[in-house]
């Protein structure tokens, strides 16, 4: 372990973000190196001093007797213990179909899509007797996949798309730190409020949508009626909106107009993850048509980039279904303006591919699809053809996130069509213990590899790449990394598909 790695490991450990493998490596290093132990203790000292200096806890006041201090500490500790005993209900509803409950007492009931994955946390043990499908004051809902429909006692309804994080503050106020939500407020619910990290939206009898994300400033989109929206920051601008108006929170506290985007918001519970589809059937002036029901689909451009060699230009050929894209390396690929699915959100990618049985010249690393940040560990999402036998079977599908990879078993270099699918963030693969599954022709691959950290894709940085198809990001020269092969029916899903779903996609039945 070099000094840089050691230092990173220690700080990650002290921040509580070092995984077990990293922890064991650090432990082994510390056992072997007495000097490293000394350094570790000094780093712990610095960490402790920073905690003491910058936290809100100070030394006991000197004007009180120590017995009084101990009595106060005991009272505070008891209160903290009581709160720490709050019930946490974890409900994973991968297969339940639209269960609907409408009890008289709960402030809020939940109905969810078939593929929804969410967690409900209640503020006290007494709450949440509805089997995890109700919220009371202080309850928190974290949605990682799919959608939910929330119904308040007042009749307010909300359709929420994953990823989302909401807390029910009161019977007429929801705090949304993350999510894209569509609210319909009946006359009985006027005065209902949605609070986000940037905005407070107060309903005056209406239908509106709220977007909150840690990566961007929050937005409100009004579809009908009236709302009052206020920015929490700076000059705290407040405005009354009517009709079809939308605003984004400005960093200085203003409210800036933005285009109204009703297509971003759910209008009903969708039972399947939203998706993008690149069929390669429709090429207009070097741009492929992107279809699908993902909210970003209408704005995505997929541009066919030409090769640097005249004899290696991409072509449109007969595919598995309709037309397909034939690539010959040397820069030919498809570049989009879409940042991809970010963070740890579940996702699935599926496509048909035919790779040649023989390739002239030495075999190089070739990529199917990529997005994210290549400089930060676990920051990219990349699908490539494995060429390192030390990592896994040659020619097999490989998922790479940066300092972590998972490899399948089937050699795809055989001149035949194969359906390939990668699912991230769904169920844990029992053999590998990782939340990544690889499929070839509808069958689950036996996988090898490791993920040092859970994949946490980072779009939107200077070093990030938007989604590109037929390309590998970390190539050594301008002409390396580009796919030699034929692609058809590429799908990207905003959720983890099951094997049955993948077979449906493979058969063209999605």
């Amino acid at each position: 372990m070099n000094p840089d790695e050691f230092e990173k490991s220690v700080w990650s450990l002290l921040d509580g973000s070092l995984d077990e493998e990293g922890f064991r490596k650090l432990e082994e290093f510390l056992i072997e190196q007495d000097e490293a132990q000394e350094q570790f203790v000094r780093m712990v000292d610095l960490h402790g001093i920073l905690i003491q200096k910058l936290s809100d806890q100070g030394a006991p006041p000197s004007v009180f007797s120590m017995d009084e201090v101990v009595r106060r500490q005991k009272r505070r500790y008891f209160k903290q213990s009581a709160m720490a005993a709050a019930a946490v209900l974890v409900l994973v509803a991968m297969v339940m179909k639209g269960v609907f409950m409408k009890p008289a007492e709960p402030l809020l009931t939940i109905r969810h899509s078939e593929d929804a994955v969410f967690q409900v946390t209640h503020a006290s043990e007494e709450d949440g007797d509805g089997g995890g499908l109700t919220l009371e004051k202080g309850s928190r809902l974290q949605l990682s996949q799919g959608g939910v429909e929330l119904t308040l006692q007042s009749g307010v309804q909300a359709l929420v798309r994953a990823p989302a994080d909401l807390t029910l503050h009161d019977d007429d106020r929801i705090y949304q730190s993350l999510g894209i939500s569509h609210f319909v407020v009946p006359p009985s619910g006027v005065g209902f409020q949605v609070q986000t990290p940037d905005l407070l939206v107060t309903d005056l009898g209406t239908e509106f949508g709220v977007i909150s994300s840690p990566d961007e400033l929050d937005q409100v989109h009004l579809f009908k009626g009236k709302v009052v929206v206020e920015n929490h920051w700076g000059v705290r601008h407040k405005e009354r909106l009517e009709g079809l108006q939308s605003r984004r929170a400005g960093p200085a506290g203003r409210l800036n107009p933005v285009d109204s985007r009703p297509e971003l918001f759910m209008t009903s519970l969708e039972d399947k993850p939203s998706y993008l589809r690149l069929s390669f059937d429709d090429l207009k002036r070097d741009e492929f048509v992107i279809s699908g029901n993902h909210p970003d689909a209408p704005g995505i451009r997929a541009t066919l980039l030409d090769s640097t060699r005249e004899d290696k230009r991409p072509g449109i050929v007969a595919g598995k279904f309709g037309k397909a894209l034939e690539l010959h390396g040397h820069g030919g690929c498809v570049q989009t303006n879409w940042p991809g699915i970010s963070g740890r959100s579940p996702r699935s990618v599926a496509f048909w591919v035919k790779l040649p049985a023989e390739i002239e010249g030495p075999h190089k690393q070739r990529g199917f699809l990529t997005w994210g940040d290549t400089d930060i560990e676990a920051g990219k999402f990349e699908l490539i053809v494995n060429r390192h036998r030390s990592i896994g079977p040659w020619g097999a599908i490989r998922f790479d996130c940066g300092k972590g990879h998972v490899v399948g078993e089937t050699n795809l270099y055989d001149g035949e069509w194969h359906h390939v699918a990668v699912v991230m963030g769904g169920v844990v693969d029992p053999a590998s213990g990782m939340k990544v599954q690889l499929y070839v022709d509808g069958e689950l691959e036996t996988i090898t590899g490791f993920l040092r950290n859970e994949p946490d894709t980072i779009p939107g940085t200077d070093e990030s790449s938007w989604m590109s198809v037929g390309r590998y990001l970390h190539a050594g020269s301008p002409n390396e990394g580009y796919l030699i092969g034929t692609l058809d029916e590429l799908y990207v899903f905003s959720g983890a598909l099951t094997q049955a779903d993948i077979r449906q996609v493979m058969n063209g039945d999605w």
Partner: protein
Amino acid sequence: MKTEPAQFVSLLIDHQEIIRSFIITQIPGSPDVRDILQEVNIVLWEKRASFKLGTNFGAWACSIARFKVLEHWRKEARRRGVLVFNDELSTSLADKTQDRDPGLIEEQREALEHCMSKLSEKNRRLLEVRYSSRSGGLEKLTKDTGRTNQSLRVTLFRLRTSLRNCVRSYLFAKGELS
């Protein structure tokens, strides 16, 4: 020799950082260090009669802290999957932590004060957000700055390394380090 209450409180306050560092080395990465430190302080006060003035307060306090850490790990941390070093390493780290002079910690604090005064406002704020319980974590800072969580964490790592080097240089210049 019996320890007067005022003497005991003085020793306890002087050794807070040593006890805290000891707890961190035993359960690194646990978010419960403050709670455990509070519990240890209560127990130390209740057992003050058993401490002999003139003996090693740090070693005595850390031996009691070790029981509290073990108790916490059994009840809470193990259930939550908090990782701990093996016994050999834990013991070695405990020995290195408990026998240090509180005066050295005080020197480090002074050095850190000096080094933090040289930070930019932006970098100081990042540290405050990371270490302060009021600021709600890095999420709010990502919104203020427009930077991603990962990007801020990379900067945090570089910042702490830089502070550590600065503290070391300061102490070396003062003759506190060889």
